[in-house]
């Protein structure tokens, strides 16, 4: 499944970069993130509780950042597994400074889900992913903008 | 494992059991009360093989917990025939070849029971609409419609 979206964050590109790549800040922004532990080499072990419509699953897996080109681009690789299935994604993040203190982030990637999640949830997975990404950027925006203010 | 006591009346008989809250009503009927005429055909509340009448309403007993039925008056397929006489709907299914493998039949008959209670002389379209919640893979539904029409006429006298 294709993931493609654009987001605007009210902060300069370096700050947004920092929020998008720092484990501590990331863990505050990923919806349902219960744990994000750096294991080195841009790889993190994650425990994320994802829930839409009461379809909740705790996913354990890894998040890896690759092709780091600060502050303009990187690739995010995610793999997670729960009792209701698994998900696996690769997404290119592109950061562009639109205005001073405003950064456009473009996402382009692929998400694959498997197991029961795919069999009975196909109708909502795309929407759920979109919503989760939306919530993520809402939080990034909140944190990055708050930081700018302070 | 915490259990809850439930009391029900099924086909006129009283039942009292301690059940796990997650026990589905259909499993209660089949495994605890021993009434295996109510069948399980799907997991998503669509096929209707598990239909029974709970407090006057035809419901899918796979989408109800036994604890929700505490205090309820339940009629299953086993409760339709009286004194060895088939209910007119059961008779209609027999007369009009309204069944083949028979697996969907109990749920279908119970759903038809609700249909005729609410609409004693339905049109073919109304019958089909009223049985939308019951899947049959064998008959193509035509003889089921005929069976319900037979029953409607008989019940009207």
């Amino acid at each position, binding site marked *: 499944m294709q993931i493609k979206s654009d987001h605007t964050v009210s902060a300069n590109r370096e700050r947004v970069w920092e929020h998008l790549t720092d484990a501590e800040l990331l863990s505050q922004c990923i919806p349902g993130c219960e744990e994000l532990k750096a294991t080195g080499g841009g790889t993190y072990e994650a425990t994320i509780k994802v829930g839409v419509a009461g379809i909740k699953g705790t996913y354990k897996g890894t998040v890896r950042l690759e092709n780091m080109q600060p502050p303009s681009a990187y690739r995010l690789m995610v793999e997670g597994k729960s009792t209701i299935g698994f998900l696996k994604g690769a997404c290119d993040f592109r950061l562009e400074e639109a205005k001073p203190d405003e950064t456009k982030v473009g996402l382009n990637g692929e998400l694959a889900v498997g197991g029961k999640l795919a*069999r*009975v949830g*196909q109708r909502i997975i795309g929407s759920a992913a979109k919503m989760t990404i939306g919530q993520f950027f809402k939080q990034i925006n909140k944190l990055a903008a708050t930081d700018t203010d302070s | 494992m915490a259990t809850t006591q439930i009391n029900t009346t099924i086909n006129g008989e009283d039942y009292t059991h301690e059940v796990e809250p997650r026990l589905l009503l259909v499993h209660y009927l089949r495994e605890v009360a021993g009434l295996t005429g109510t*069948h399980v055909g799907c997991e998503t509340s669509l*096929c209707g093989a598990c239909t029974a009448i709970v407090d006057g309403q035809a419901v899918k007993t796979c989408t109800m917990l036994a604890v929700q039925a505490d205090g309820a008056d339940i009629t299953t397929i086993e409760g339709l025939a009286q004194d060895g006489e088939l209910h007119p709907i059961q008779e209609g299914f027999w007369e009009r070849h309204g069944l083949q493998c028979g697996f969907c039949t109990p749920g279908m008959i119970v759903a038809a029971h609700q249909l005729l209670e609410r609409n004693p002389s339905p049109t073919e379209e109304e019958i089909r*609409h009223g049985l939308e919640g019951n899947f049959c893979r064998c008959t*193509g539904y*035509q003889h089921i419609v005929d069976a319900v029409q037979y029953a409607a006429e008989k019940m009207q006298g």
Partner: protein
Amino acid sequence: MATMAGPSRLIGAPIKRREDPRLVQGLSHYVDDIKLVNMHHCTFLRSDYAHADIKSIDTEAAENLSGVVKVITGVDIQGKVGSIPCAAEIEGLKVPDHPALAVDRVRFVGEPIAAVVATDPYVARDALDLIEVEYDELPTVVDLDDAIESDSTVIYDEFGDNIAFTMPLDAGDVDAAFAEADHVVSQRFVNQRLIPNSIEPRGVLAEYLPGEGTLTVWSSTQVPHHLKTILSLLLDLPEQLVRVIAPEVGGGFGSKLNVYPEEAVVAYLATELRKPVKWIEKRSEGFTTTIHGRDQVDYVDMAVKNDGTITALRAKLLANMGAYHQLLTPIIPVLTYLMMPGAYKISNIKLELIGVFTNKMATDAYRGAGRPEATHIIERMVDLAAQKLGMDPKEIRFKNFPQPDEFPLEMATGVTYDSGNYQMSFNKALDTVDYANLRTRQAELRSQGRYLGIGVATYAEICGMGPSVGVAGGGWESSTVRIERTGKVTVLTGVSPHGQGQETSFAQIVADEYGISIDDIVVIHGDTGRQPQGIGTFGSRATAVGGAALIIATQQVKEKMAQIAAHMLEANVDDLVFEDGNIFVQGSPDSAVTFADVAATAHVAVNLPPDVEPGLEATHFFEPSNFTYPFGAHISIVEVDPETGEIDLQRYVAVDDCGNIINPLLVDGQVHGGIAQGLGQAMYEGAVYDENGQLLTGSFMDYAIPKATQVPRFETEHTTTPSPVNPLGVKGVGEAGTIASSPCLVNAVVDALSPFGVTDIDMPMTPNRVWQAIQDAQ
């Protein structure tokens, strides 16, 4: 020999079913309704991946759960449970090992990996979530066209490619026919993957008695006898000590014509634990791991002359096997291959059938099994040719039908059609709908911007699965007739009905032959312990082969009864009449012996004619000389809403010729059900896998089987052309509706949309697809 008195009383009559009183009251017993003392419950952990190496399986937490009795994985049963078998014998066929539980690699989503046994089904389910499996994901092969490319990922390294087999045919002079053709029409067809979905899920209950060494298995199966033989081989148990019972079976449609890993594992667990073990399939398991049907991609060319004569057919058929062969997987597309000419005389045919492995559930027999695919191809091609020639779809069919006196007719694909009169059934269908007026009406509506479509499909199918040379595992059937001491008749048959109603139709056959009440007959089936020999119910064979075995056994016993009765009456055997429960000399009903008296005499055995042994029982194994070839014509009338793509199916007329009819009520029921399933394929159903081999239509929320509101009232008619290959003259009718209806409906929708330039549409013809076809054509 005794003759039968007067006309048949029951054969041909719409006798209501003797099965029904128990079924309408919920008093019958399907596998899940059977409970044994100390019964344990089994669940299966299944792969979430379509293609992956299993790195490790950790079952410890599951084993420690209170109530869990045992957890086994593929390694635990290696060498103890044999490979799940494939009965197909095709030259060069690659047959992969098919372990009942995956050992080191999984090849489709849903493949069983581990089995849990617990004292309670709820606990067994809980335990599944506690098993941890680590996988190494592999690239998947899901698309048929991609799978045969040389750079495709290969599912079985040992085979080198994904091609399970190829089967070529080159009959006549195809190249010349194409060179001389006035027109060539070409089309690619996708015959989508379907999920059978009998309303009763599969289920198995097994009990092993260690003292006696007997294994009894209750299974929701169409083939208890095959299952008995195969289980004894898989588990290395003496076949005499294995008994398989198919109790009430809630539909099958081919999906229960198989031997599944769960049957082997549950039976193994029962022997190992010495406790009864039950497994009942959940619908979500059924979607992923009960066999699927269809799934072909066909590339077809047809050569025609200006007058509509079809001179040649050329096709490449790609058939999806899935990841493993089940019992008959590779055989199914062979039926497509054999039936490519359909109802037409086409002497030049070139085919290449390719069976292909992919990372999906295995395909196998689903109602129609190979013939709906052939019928779809030929009936669509004929319509495409007619369109190209500007000819009425009716005319081109008449042009290419064989004449009734040409039967038996050898076809270019090597089969010989037994009997037929295609003109008769087609004319009857055309008359029923008043075809000429319909076309006028269609033109009128078009001028008002309304899109009526008239779809025609004429078909011939291959049925009555026998003879043995053409049916893997044997094409005969066995029936036994025993007249008890009280004069009651027991019929034991190897066919295994699961909705078809042979408890009634077989009793009709016997009652007529003996001139007794149908109430004095009991038909027993589906129990290898009671009827030791049999093949089963599939391929529209039960009456054509099993019924044929029955009538012969019935007559054999009758002959002996007549001898005894003649002895009692001091009459000539040839003068005797069996009527109303009596046996008497023709014209002298007053001096009769009763049927029961003769039965008693046979058993008491003190007043038997010389050389006649006591008892009244005969078993006959019937081996048919050929398949049967039912045929017919279906016509559907649709109106399409071009703004939304919605199809309004207004009328459906089916004229089927299935030879002689035993019970018209049951025949109509079979036709209705068959049409509904074909209609399901045409309009609603389709298994969708994503590019990673994940099944996206894994529940009834996304996979639509027709509901009562989604099918119209069907109008059924018949013509009768008896089959010469069995003594009843029957052909079989279980699949006819499915075979003719999908192309009939596609032809109707394409006909409706022809003003837009639409020439073909893939199934299922969802509103989205229909709307898109209009957009694409414009």
